[in-house]
Structure formats: C-alpha cells, structure tokens
C-alpha cells in the first residue's frame, strides 16, 4: 500500500514538473493577479494609512490586472525584499515582478527572467547632508556610505570609487529603511541608491531642506517589470500592457477623455482601443483591454505625475522619462 502511494506521489510529481500550464490561463482561473512589489518605497510602492498599496510600480500591476480582468483591483500584492524578489518570481509565488528592479544582462540570462519594457529610466546618485559642504562625488573621498544589500547599487558604488581612485567605507544593510535611518542618524556621510529612491526618501524626511541630492549620476538604471522565462504568451500581455500606457499618452488619451475617443475616426486609435477588433484576440485578452487600462488606471503621464511627478511629494521631472516625441526615451512600437 505504502509503495503504491509513493509511486503515485512520484508519478504526480513528474506530472507536475512536465505540465506547462500557461500563466495567463492560471491567472484567469484564479481570478487574481499576483504581483510582487517593494515592501515600502514612497511613490513606487507603499501601503497608505488604510493599508492599501499605492505607487508607480503598483499602478503597473493595476494596469496589467485591468487588461486581463477589466478590474484593476484584482491584484494580490506580495511585499518582497531585494533578496527574495527573483526567487518569488522563479517559484511561481508571483506572476509579475514590479519592484523597481534594474534590467541587466546577468539577471536576464542567469536568473530565469524576462524583462518587460523599461518603465522608468533611472540612475544612481548620492544624497548628503547640506552642512557637510559636499558638492560633487569626488568630495566624498574617505566617507562612510550607506547602501542596500543585494542591489546593483552596491556594485556600481564599488566600481565607480575604484575607477576614480576614491576611498569609501561601505555600511551595507539588508533593508532599505535601515539604510536611510542609519544615514539620518549620522552613521554614514552619504546614502546612495537610484535618484528616484533618494527623492522618495528625501520627501519623507522631517527637514528635507537639510539634505541635497548630488546632480552626478554614476550608472544607468533602467527599471523594468519582469516575468518568468519561458512563457511568451504571458510575456506579451505584460509587454503590451505597458506599451499601451505610452501609446495612450502619445495619442493624448487619458482616463478622463478616453470615452470621447471611442467615436474617433482615426484607424490607429480605433485599433488601439479595440473598436477595430484583432489586438485583443492576438494577446488572448478581451478586445477592450487597452481601453480598460486607460479608463481605470490612466496613461503613462497620469501614472507618473500622480505617483512621482509634480503632483506627488517626490516632485521628479519627466527628464529622460518623457516620450520620444518630447526628447525622452519612451518609445512604444505601433499597435498594428
């Protein structure tokens, strides 16, 4: 009897291992999208006082949920540390990782991931105390610098200081909060992470004017959502959900005026909003998927301004995150 059970167990295990159920179908059956986010980074993903998740990365999750279900609230958020994020994705604990993660070759190739389009072009910078009189990175020679463990930041920091023959003392913490607390308490002279992250932390400080973010940037940090390697159908859904945000901005479609565009004569917009059918079927989604995203979450401009731009405490400029038409880097392929 026992042997029978064991063989059964073995058989099912191999069956599990071999069955390649598509992620999209699993999500549709489950009726909820599992999205991995940062455990707390103001403007990108942080629970508000009512315990509801908000931010730029969160809105990306909401956009994908809107595309799949027509309901942006059907998302279950999992807060992940820097260490846990890729494993959570690999193991199927989450369907998509939207956690300000930098797109790099090593991660793309050896971690079993595929990176979706870049949603935020960032760069690594430094925040220092104003009274220390630091105006450029070279002034930080010999300083103690706080940073977070397991990030590209840690590597860039070492590389940059080494190339420029500068010395520093790293103080490396596991959690992002700890990094900033230690900086504020004076354990470090500077703190380094992506400029957006620095702006987020600065906005939370009691006396933000006592601190400055240096204008120099030492790295390229293209932040992109990621999905598991090997399921191209799902990859496409995530990819085009993000492109839809940019395309909508390009057409000038916002959550407020999207209903007016339903009567448009422009064939490109008709195809985009699903009035001319085809795109939805190709992706395995409802034809109104793009309409749902824009109506329920907004276009890229709205997401940016609401969470990290002028209307937010972070007050970040669009800069290179503008559309290609306005001198930025965001460029969506046509929705043909």
């Amino acid at each position, binding site marked *: 009897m026992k042997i029978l059970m064991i063989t059964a167990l073995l058989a099912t*295990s191999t069956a*599990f291992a071999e069955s390649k159920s598509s992620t999209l179908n699993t999500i549709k059956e489950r009726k909820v999208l599992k999205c991995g986010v940062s455990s707390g980074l103001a403007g990108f993903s942080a629970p508000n006082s009512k*315990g509801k998740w908000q931010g730029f990365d969160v809105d990306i999750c909401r956009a994908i949920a809107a595309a799949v279900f027509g309901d942006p609230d059907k998302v279950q958020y999992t807060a992940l540390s820097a260490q*846990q994020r890729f*494993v959570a994705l690999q*193991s199927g604990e989450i369907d998509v990782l939207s956690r300000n993660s930098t797109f790099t070759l090593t991660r793309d190739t050896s971690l079993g991931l595929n990176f979706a389009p870049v949603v935020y072009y960032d760069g690594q910078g430094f925040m220092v105390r104003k009274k220390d009189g630091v105006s450029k990175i070279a002034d930080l020679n010999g300083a103690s610098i706080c940073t977070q463990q397991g990030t590209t930041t840690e590597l860039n920091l070492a590389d940059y200081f080494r190339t420029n023959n500068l010395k520093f003392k790293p103080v490396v913490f596991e959690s992002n909060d700890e990094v900033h607390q230690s900086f504020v308490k004076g354990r470090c002279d500077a703190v380094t992470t992506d400029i957006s992250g620095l702006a987020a932390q600065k906005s939370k400080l009691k006396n933000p004017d006592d601190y400055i973010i240096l204008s120099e940037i030492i790295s390229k940090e293209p932040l992109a959502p990621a999905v598991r390697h090997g399921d191209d159908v799902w990859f496409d859904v995530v990819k085009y959900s993000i492109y839809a945000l940019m395309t909508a901005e390009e057409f000038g479609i916002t959550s407020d005026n999207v209903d007016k565009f339903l009567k448009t004569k422009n064939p490109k917009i008709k195809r985009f909003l699903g009035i001319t059918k085809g795109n939805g079927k190709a992706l395995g989604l409802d034809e109104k998927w793009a309409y749902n995203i824009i109506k329920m979450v907004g276009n890229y401009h709205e997401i940016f301004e609401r969470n990290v731009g002028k209307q937010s405490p972070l007050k970040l400029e669009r800069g290179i995150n503008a559309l290609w038409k306005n001198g930025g880097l965001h460029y969506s392929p046509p929705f043909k």
Partner: protein
Amino acid sequence: MKAKIRWAKDNLFKGYFNSALSIFLITFFAWAFYNFFNWLVIDSVLLGDADACRQASGACLAFIVDKTRFIFFGFYPETEIWRPIIAIFIFFIITFYSRLKSRWNRRLLYNWMYCGLVIWLLMRGGYFGLVKVETHNWGGLPLTLMLAVVGMIFSYPIGIFLALGRQSKLPLIKYLCVAYIELIRGVPLISMLFMSSVMMPLFLPEGYSPDKLMRAQVAIIMFISAYMAEVVRGGLQAIPRGQYEAADAMGLTYWQKMRLVILPQALKIVIPPTVNTAIGMFKDTSLVIIIALFDLMYTTKASMQDSNWLGFSVEAYLFVALIYFVFCNMISRMGRLFEKEFR
C-alpha cells in the same frame, strides 16, 4: 525585628569587604532606580507630539501610545481590531483552563481544536459577514503567538518520534534520525529561514509553493523539532533499564511499551528543558523579521521608521522587550506549575 537585624548581619554586613560591597550596590540600585523613574515617569511625555518629546528630557511615551495599535496588530484593518483582541483572549482562556492536570482528557483536546478553529475563523474572516483578512495582513502579536504556538504543537510530537527513532534498534532508522537531528542542530535558524524563503520554492512544483508565512512556519517547526528530540532523548535515557525490561516481560509491543510505560515517565522528567525550549522558540520567532514577515519585532521596527517620530527607538525597544519578557516569564511560570502538578 531581631530576626531582621540578624538577617542583615548575615547577608549584608559580614566582614568589611561584604559591608562595603553591600553599601556600594545598594547606593547604586537607588541611584539607578531614581534616574530610571525620573526618565520614565517624572520627565516623560505621555500626551503630545514628537516636538514636545524632543523638548522633554524623559521618555517619549506618547510615541508608544501613538504606535501601540500598529505594534500589536500591524496591517490588520483598523476597524477589525476587535477580532485579534478576542482571538488572543480566547487563547489565554483556554491556556489558563488547561493548567490543571485533572482537566487533561480527551474533552480538553476537542476544546483546543474548537478554540483553534474559532480563532482561525475570527482572524481570517470571510464567513458570517466578517470581512476577509488575508494572512499577509496579519501582523504583530497574533503573528508572533501563532508562529510560536503552532510551532510548539507540531514540533513536540515530531520531536518525540525523532527521539524514539534515535533510540531505535533498527540501524537505518536510527541513523536517519541522528543525521536529521545533528544536521539541524548544527546550523543557525537564520539559514533555515533563508532556505524556506529562497530554496523551498524551488523544491516544489512551480506554483504549488505555499506562501511565505507558511514556509517560515515549516522552517521553525523543522528547526525546533530537532531540539525537542534532544530534550526527549534526555528523558528516555533517564528511565532506568528495569522499566524497559519489565515492559518487555509483560509482553507489551513496542508502541504499547512506549505509550504506556516509558513516555509518560520520560516526558514528565523533561518538563523543565521542554519549557526552556519553548521559551527559546518564542524568542526565536523574532528572526522572521529577516525574511520580512511583520511579527511583533518588525512592527516595532517599522513604527520607528515614521519620519515624524524619528529618534525614539530606545522607548520602542524597551516597550517590546517588556512584552517579550512578560510572555517568556508566563511560559516559565506555567512550566513550574506543570512540574508541581505532575510531581
């Protein structure tokens, strides 16, 4: 009065050295207590905001008052706080009820199961018009208690089986148990937690991996069972040989012998170390902070990050230390009670 003077003579002022030491220590106590009392009561700020706290020289109790709800219950929805409060209350009542040996019977076991079910339903909701609260929104004290209590309930029997396996005459079973126990005892809990958070998902078929909380719970159970096994083994070895032989002579089977003769005696002997292991486990649940679970420790740390209240970590740490102290003390008191009950 005379007796008191004599006591003082014997215990405080025996010889020059002792007298000097006593006077020094008593002055030191008085001084430390005076300062602490000033800090905690006289100069402290109970009501007010962070600025009032910064001006005062004493403790910032206002910070604790402001954060108490979050420290105790984490992200549990504010309007539903009564549910974990009642759940903890039920847990205390059933624990208090089971303190007497005379009440230890099958009924009690059922009562525990009912209470467990009620607590689970109350916390999770989704039925009877209660709002559903997913486990990843549980936090603070209920989470810490759950990790510890569930950990104990599972690791105790597993520990007994491992200990029996280690004493077994069948070499293969013996060595499997020895390997497990020694392997687990040789590594820090933190590595087990990392394993649960990073490695365990890869061990299971894709998409079948349980959530983070469950995996941490499994790691804690795996870890504590090995220690429990060693505690039980101590008891098994302390039983005189005659007991084993007498049970064999009666013609009892192995399981009858263990269940009726050996284990009741052995488990009684090891009550003190069992209690110590339980206390150790209660303290060790605080390590789940490293894999980002919002237990009592994490909620405390998270409250310190509030930019309005920066710089009052000493108050917060002392507060949460007090909570842990009270609970550990309760466990050890209960242990002493059991010891008396079983004597």
